């Protein structure tokens, strides 16, 4: 009996985790949490402006071709209060980014985590990933 109950509870838990939270603001209109992206590359541009900070990364594929990806984070106001400075990421810094891809297939994504490869430091991205804007 106990095993059956445990299996049932686990199944319910998995089901809840798989169902995205009902349309919260604009994340779900733009990004897909079920389309994860993970890339490593050098920062080419940083836009430290509201409503969302953005940074752009040149990513090389196996054939040596470079694609420029754009990543959205939270508001710089929120990032500043979480310990960022405008120059925490610099042009040329190599980063590893995990993010949720844009629904329209563009090379943009909403950043879940950013690791500054030089130091191994994981940076807070201030992103809601669909639980809020």
């Amino acid at each position, binding site marked *: 009996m106990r095993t059956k109950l445990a299996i049932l509870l686990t199944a319910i838990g998995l089901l809840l985790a798989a169902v995205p939270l*009902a*349309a*919260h*603001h*604009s*994340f*779900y*209109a*733009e990004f897909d949490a079920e389309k994860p992206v993970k890339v490593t590359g050098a920062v080419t541009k940083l*836009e430290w*402006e*509201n*409503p*969302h900070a*953005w940074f752009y990364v040149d990513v090389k594929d196996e054939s040596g071709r470079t694609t420029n990806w754009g990543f*959205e984070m*939270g*508001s710089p*106001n*929120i990032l*500043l209060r*979480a310990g960022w*400075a*405008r*120059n925490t990421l610099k042009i040329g810094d190599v980063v590893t980014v995990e993010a949720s891809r*844009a*629904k*329209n297939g*563009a090379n*943009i994504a909403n950043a*879940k*985590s950013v690791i500054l490869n030089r130091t191994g430091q*994981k940076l*807070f*991205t*201030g*992103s*809601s*990933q669909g*639980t*809020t*804007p």
Partner: protein
Amino acid sequence: MKSIAAATAVLLICAAPSFAQWAKVPDASLPRTRDGKPNLSAPAPKAQDGKPDLSGMWTPELDPNALPPGATTVESITGFVPPRYFVDITTGMKPEDAAMTPWAADLFTQRQGARGKNDPAAHCQPPGVPAISAAPLPYKIIQTPKMVLILYEGESVFRQIFLDARRPVEDPQPRFMGYSTGKWEGETLVVNTVGLTDKTWLDALGHPHSDALHLVERFRRTTVGNLEIEVTIDDPKAYVKPLKYTLKASLVPDEDLLEYFCAENEKDVQHFQ
């Protein structure tokens, strides 16, 4: 001469603040503990006219249900945690206490079906009250005997709460911040607001309100560091019973507001599906 110039150059570099905001200026009016930290649990201060003083910079309480397991400090949170009631004002309410009218329920369903892409806040319009008090950006209250002024960092908007019992004109132009009057009842500032535009959503999920919303907010500063706003949504066109919930906020001592203009670099709307 060379060494003075060099020394001056070094001093200038060291003096430049890394964020180019104002340097931290300790608030001389805050009671402090022996180690110089603000005493946030001290009794709430009084204004010169003897009323409780709500003045200060306030940040909304985070949603305890959204904290990652095991997190007890902001430092241990690596993702974004929303303020309580930012996403859903009916959090914790019994379903019968949050019942919507058919008009409101239909509108709510439409908004969710569109994945939130029609949220005016996603298009750089201000959130309106009371939603702005649950936004993840702080606000500053400046209290005077005749008026309470609130400066909200979100969209850099202001709100005036008049304490002289004035009424808005007949058929007022609907506004994001509405028309607010306040009256002290003991230690509580009771604020009544009408004339709110129905464009705004009450939360990120899209709970609606009509332009007949009568919003009541009871502001109470319980200690130096703690503010509570008991909200009542009185809107029979949208909700069968008035909705009640309490927004809590913590003082942010010795800091100041930043600017926030959504139109500065809004890039998401063009990608909405």
